[in-house]
């Protein structure tokens, strides 16, 4: 294309708005950890069925559909129907994994999840892609407040996994849990990070991945990966950063969080791929205050705004959740 006269050259980004992977160039990844793990588990557990609202392709459920076509139910672009029908199948003894985007589960289908699933503690596993800011499509696809919305639902377990390993490990664990689960999903080429930490996912448990005496970062989801990277950067400046990974946001691992946050002298920072309102940060703040633990406390998260559309690396930096932005903010608070 010819450049258009009169328009000043601005930095042109090479990534596109709808990004398939949040992995940095050169980062180790695994393909479709959820889809592959579900196929493996379904081979052992015949009561598992997969359901979606015209998003199998973008939630890695297409792998399950190919492996088990008789146990796959395509419900069409109808999220309320999806969740209620999942409830219907669960009533009859099946364990449905129902997939869509996080925005549609949290906003469009909330009433159905609440009344048809949670109220009767049915074992429906809602696995939902594009958590927080993992799409450049604009507010219609950015689930910036899904955790805030779902935290208010009694009996719902909420999990925000960090990487491919954790997603693989979480699938059988949430299937075994006797009740509804909401899992934020990373799909496609998902970064692989936690294998280097000898990690094993346990529902309801926070795990200290890295020790450090100056700062405690408590994080979930992809922000744990970022926190670990930021910790390495800060180490070069002789700042010792501990990272506590808290993938289960409801119920919180209160004991571990209090124990680590009570260790005197550390700045406590909660980092999440979610609005600063109503997510992990505010949940932890409440726990600390109720238990009279009052360290210096800051939150890293998305602002209380409808976010811009655009390219993800730019947006992550602008909204303060990139690795560099985390390191910058932590330094500024010390």
């Amino acid at each position, binding site marked *: 294309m010819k450049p258009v006269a009169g328009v000043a050259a601005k930095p042109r980004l090479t990534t596109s708005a709808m990004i398939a992977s949040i992995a940095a160039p050169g980062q180790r990844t695994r393909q479709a950890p959820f889809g592959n793990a579900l196929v493996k588990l379904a081979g052992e557990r015949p009561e598992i069925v997969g359901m979606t609202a015209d998003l199998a392709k973008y939630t890695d459920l297409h792998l399950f559909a190919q492996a088990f076509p008789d146990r796959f139910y395509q419900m069409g672009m*109808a999220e309320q129907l999806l969740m209620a029908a999942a409830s219907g199948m669960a*009533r009859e003894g099946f364990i449905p994994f129902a997939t869509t985007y996080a925005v549609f589960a949290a906003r469009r289908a909330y009433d159905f999840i609440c*009344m048809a699933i949670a109220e009767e503690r049915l074992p429906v596993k809602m696995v939902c892609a594009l958590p927080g800011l993992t799409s450049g499509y604009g507010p219609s696809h950015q689930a910036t407040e899904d955790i805030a919305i779902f935290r208010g639902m009694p009996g719902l377990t909420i999990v925000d996994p960090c990487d491919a390993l954790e997603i693989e490990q979480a699938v059988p664990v949430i299937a075994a849990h006797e009740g509804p689960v909401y899992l934020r999903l990373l799909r496609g080429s998902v970064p692989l990070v936690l294998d280097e930490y000898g990690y094993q996912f346990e529902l309801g448990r926070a795990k200290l991945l890295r020790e450090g005496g100056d700062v405690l970062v408590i994080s979930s989801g992809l922000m744990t990966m970022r926190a670990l990277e930021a910790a390495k950067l800060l180490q070069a400046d002789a700042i010792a950063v501990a990272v506590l990974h808290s993938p289960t946001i409801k119920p919180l691992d209160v004991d571990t969080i209090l124990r680590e946050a009570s260790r005197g002298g550390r700045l406590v920072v909660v980092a999440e791929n979610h609005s600063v309102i109503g997510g992990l940060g505010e949940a932890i703040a409440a726990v600390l205050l109720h238990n009279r633990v009052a360290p210096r406390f800051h939150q890293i998260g998305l602002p209380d705004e409808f976010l811009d559309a655009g390219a993800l690396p730019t947006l992550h930096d602008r909204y303060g959740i990139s690795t560099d932005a985390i390191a910058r903010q932590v330094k500024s608070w010390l």
Partner: protein
Amino acid sequence: MGAVQGQGYIGQALGFADVLAVLYFRALHYRAADPAWEGRDRCLLSVGHYAIALYAALIEAGVIPAEELETYGCDTSRLPMSGMAPYTPGMEITGGSLGQGLPIAVGMCLALKAKRSGCFVYNLLSDGELNEGSTWEAVQSASHWKLDNLIAVVDVNDQQADGRSSQVLSFEPLAARWESFGWDAQRVDGNNMASLVDAFDRARTLQDPKPRVILCDTLMGKGVPFLEMRDKAHFIRVDAGEWGHALEVLRGEGVP
């Protein structure tokens, strides 16, 4: 039960009583002593506020003891004002929000087919619930999946919270809408026992690989003329003296 609380969705209950009688004494396969029997036909009360009517049927059917009748709507009762599955034996779903029963029924029917079960799922809904988009998502889905084990029963009484349904958000031509979405549709006088029996029998025995709906035109307050004629009948408050009168009329003892 209405007398216990002094108010309630009496109009709907009276109007729907004939349909429930056919359901619980002709159509449904169930075991009164074992409401969770795997081989039962499932009966979903999507229109949760008709609970009062369903409780009456469950009591008559022997699922709930008659003594519990007077606990209706009271604290710690098993008979809350809006149907709730965890509270009441024989109550399959929690229907209060409306528009949810049919989508749930779709899932149950899919599951029953996967289990190769011959059981039917009946979903009871009101004409007002047809406003909800989720209902139409389920209507289309049921047709796509050829759920011939699904029987929807619609109470067409032309009343909802904000007035007559035909004025709030009209739904005619009703049978044509369901048929255009691939269902078998029957429309009957919901207070005529013979017509109801025929319709329910046909719904079970129809061989077409389609879901089926029975559209029942009912009169709210049926059986108690001074209630039949009442305007704004969606939620009725009745004076203490009138309850006795109503009971007399229903028993055939008093003057309407």
